[in-house]
């Protein structure tokens, strides 16, 4: 989806992790020794497993009214599955995670406006196009200085850095400001910070249809077209061919055109669909209505995912940390060495990479965890590494005489630790451990890359079809802040309790 300006942040992350994907592909390649082809499996089980973002309106998103997954891509692949005699079963994941999940066999096909390019053709089996889009230039409505691509010479445009459209704008002589997504690009245009943004006509169509924004307009076409396709694992050519047959049938019987018209008021499954703003059908919902409708599902995600992920991971992480800290304090070199290596690995690698490895790489070794479990494991190990050093230094802060006094009373190592040392070390450890806990609350937003529907993910899902990213991210931020506030208050109470035996 190189042409979608919605997704640049995700694209950048994906780029960072590209090397890992290749590794995963190799690992998965080694593991896929099963005799049955994916096509046979789909026919046997009557299920086609589909990976999609669920936050990419109008292609793959949740209807704000019903919260059902819907969209152009969703309907097309559902129809395709029907032709194959199967039912489409959807797995939602951020764009970063889609290809990794495809390769590690968590689903069979990616239906998410994947743009056809040479790089992808080399790595995956790609279907025939089911969307063809044109490049358009968007300017302020009152700006008449740009009427064709060459007018961008000397102008400034806002683009996702890694998108195809950034290259198009650069070639035309424009200076490109890198932004995170389409909404941000349009905002910069409206604020007169840049002159224009280049994107595909479908994104523009949807934007106008949803927002009713008349401060900006489509000023010109770029003349480029791009084709969007379904992506399969490289060795699934058979399934791809079957899907192509299905697409042809759907094209012939008019199904594709009718699905397309429903979303875009025209047929985008063939080229040159145009970019004039369609009728503004459907009521535009106010920001407040959107926030009101989304606040509940977001709170639910916080209660069902963010908070349990945080608390369970932190509890397990503390246990790991205690053992690692004690190992690190061991006089046996091999034992303390293992602890050192563990701490070094955890602290020296990005949490995102740890999540990816546990969820996507371990299955190649025969260890498959469900998303929630994988997230718990990754976060627990992460907390374990950081908290181990905190606990170690807290234990060292307890005077030696305390160990001796306990020893002379006849206490063994573990009794001394439990009854004498840890209660005193806790006082030193609580403030830095609280920092770790509060960081963890926000780190759980990374769990969406391993398919956990947590708070931020729900905000993305709600924002996607409405372009109200700022409002919904604001609500998400508020929720995170409230959770952290409650934790800070409990930290304060705990500290007061632990200070009771210390002279003020």
């Amino acid at each position, binding site marked *: 989806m190189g042409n979608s300006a919605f997704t640049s942040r995700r694209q950048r992350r994906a780029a960072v992790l590209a090397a890992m994907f290749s590794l995963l592909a190799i690992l998965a390649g080694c593991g896929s020794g099963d005799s049955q082809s994916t096509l046979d499996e789909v026919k046997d089980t009557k299920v086609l497993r589909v990976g999609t973002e669920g936050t990419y309106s109008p292609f793959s998103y949740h209807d704000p009214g019903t919260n059902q997954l819907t969209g152009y891509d969703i309907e097309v692949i559902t129809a395709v599955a029907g032709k194959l005699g199967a039912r489409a079963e959807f797995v939602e994941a951020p764009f970063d995670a889609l290809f990794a999940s495809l390769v590690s066999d968590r689903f069979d096909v990616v239906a998410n406006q994947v743009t056809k390019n040479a790089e992808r053709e080399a790595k995956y089996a790609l279907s025939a196009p089911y969307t063809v889009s044109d490049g358009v230039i968007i300017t302020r409505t009152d700006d008449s200085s740009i009427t064709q691509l060459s007018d961008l010479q000397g102008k400034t445009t806002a683009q996702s850095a890694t998108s195809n459209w950034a290259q198009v704008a650069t070639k035309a002589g424009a200076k490109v400001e890198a932004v995170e997504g389409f909404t941000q690009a349009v905002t910069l245009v409206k604020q007169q910070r840049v002159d224009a943004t280049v994107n595909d006509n479908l994104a523009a169509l949807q934007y106008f249809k949803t927002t009713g924004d008349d401060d900006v307009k489509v000023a010109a076409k770029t003349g480029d077209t791009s084709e969007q396709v379904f992506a399969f694992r490289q060795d699934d050519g058979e399934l791809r061919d079957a899907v192509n047959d299905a697409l042809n049938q759907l094209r012939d019987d008019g199904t594709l055109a009718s699905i397309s018209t429903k979303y875009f008021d025209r047929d985008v499954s063939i080229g040159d669909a145009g970019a004039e703003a369609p009728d503004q059908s459907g009521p535009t919902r106010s920001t407040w209505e959107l926030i009101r409708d989304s606040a509940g599902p977001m709170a639910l995600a916080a209660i069902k995912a963010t908070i349990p992920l945080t608390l369970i991971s932190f509890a397990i992480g503390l246990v790991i940390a205690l053992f690692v800290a004690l190992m690190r304090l061991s006089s046996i070199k091999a034992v303390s060495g293992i602890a050192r290596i563990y701490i070094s690995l955890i602290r020296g690698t990005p949490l995102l990479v740890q999540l990816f490895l546990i969820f996507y790489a371990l299955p190649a070794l025969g260890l498959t965890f469900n998303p929630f479990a994988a997230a718990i494991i990754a976060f627990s190990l992460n907390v374990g590494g950081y908290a181990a050093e905190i606990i170690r230094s807290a234990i060292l802060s307890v005077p030696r*005489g305390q160990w001796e006094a306990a*020893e*002379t*009373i*006849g206490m063994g190592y573990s009794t001394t630790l439990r*009854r*004498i040392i840890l209660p005193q070390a806790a006082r030193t450890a609580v403030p830095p451990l609280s920092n770790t806990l509060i960081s963890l609350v926000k780190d759980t937003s990374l769990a969406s890359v391993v398919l956990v529907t947590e708070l931020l993910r729900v905000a993305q899902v709600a924002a996607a079809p409405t372009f109200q990213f700022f409002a919904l991210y604001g609500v998400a931020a508020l929720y995170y802040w409230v959770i952290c506030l409650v934790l800070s208050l409990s930290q304060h109470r705990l500290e007061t309790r632990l200070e009771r*035996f*210390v002279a003020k």
Partner: protein
Amino acid sequence: MSQDIAVPSGGRSLVTAKGLHKAFGELAVLRGVDFEVDSGTVTVLIGPSGSGKTTVLRSLNALERPDAGVVRIGDVRVDFGQEPAKRDLAALRAQSAMVFQGHNLFPHLSVLENITVGPVVVQGRPEGEVRTEAERLLDQVGLASKAEQYPYQLSGGQQQRVGIARALALRPKLMLFDEPTSALDPELVGEVLTVMKDLAGEGWTMMVVTHEIRFARSVADQVLFMDGGIILEQGAPEAVLVDPQQPRTRTFLHRILDPI
């Protein structure tokens, strides 16, 4: 032990130490230490710093492991020449209780809990009984009203008296005091020494490392003068403290009693 607080009666040897050697790296701190302590007597160890007094005391409680030598307390005998088993060290340790220079009370436990934690957690005695006994011990050291306070709320002398009660609660055969008054303000020294004197009067077997020569003269049955890792002179307090035979002992006493 059937009675509440074991107060062993005097008469026969309770402690034997033979040929204790201990080196910390290159530094030899004990170079062959032998002595006997009879039940119900008070033995005071004196000597310049670094002479090995504290190491002797800590060896008796197995906080320090001598490189060689034999320690016997009561019917527990440990030969440090062979690698002693953990169980034997624990048995030896259970014979005695230690009062530290820096009291080492547990700051997160109340005064009463400091005293009961050993008997309840380690010795597994019933909590109610231990509590009653702890209250009596606190009364004995003059701190009955402080049971529910935390150590930081007490003065240095009071903290040290709690330290003594904590040791007594373990019902040891032997009480070890490692410079119990050295860290105290001078005006607080008296209250601690008074408690110790009372214990001696009750017939407790005690070994005390101290620089309080007057205490030694009035309470000790036996004085050991250590220097350079050996016992240079030993005997009754009148002999060692009033009429020492060794020039080193004389010099040391002179420095202590008349420092200017």
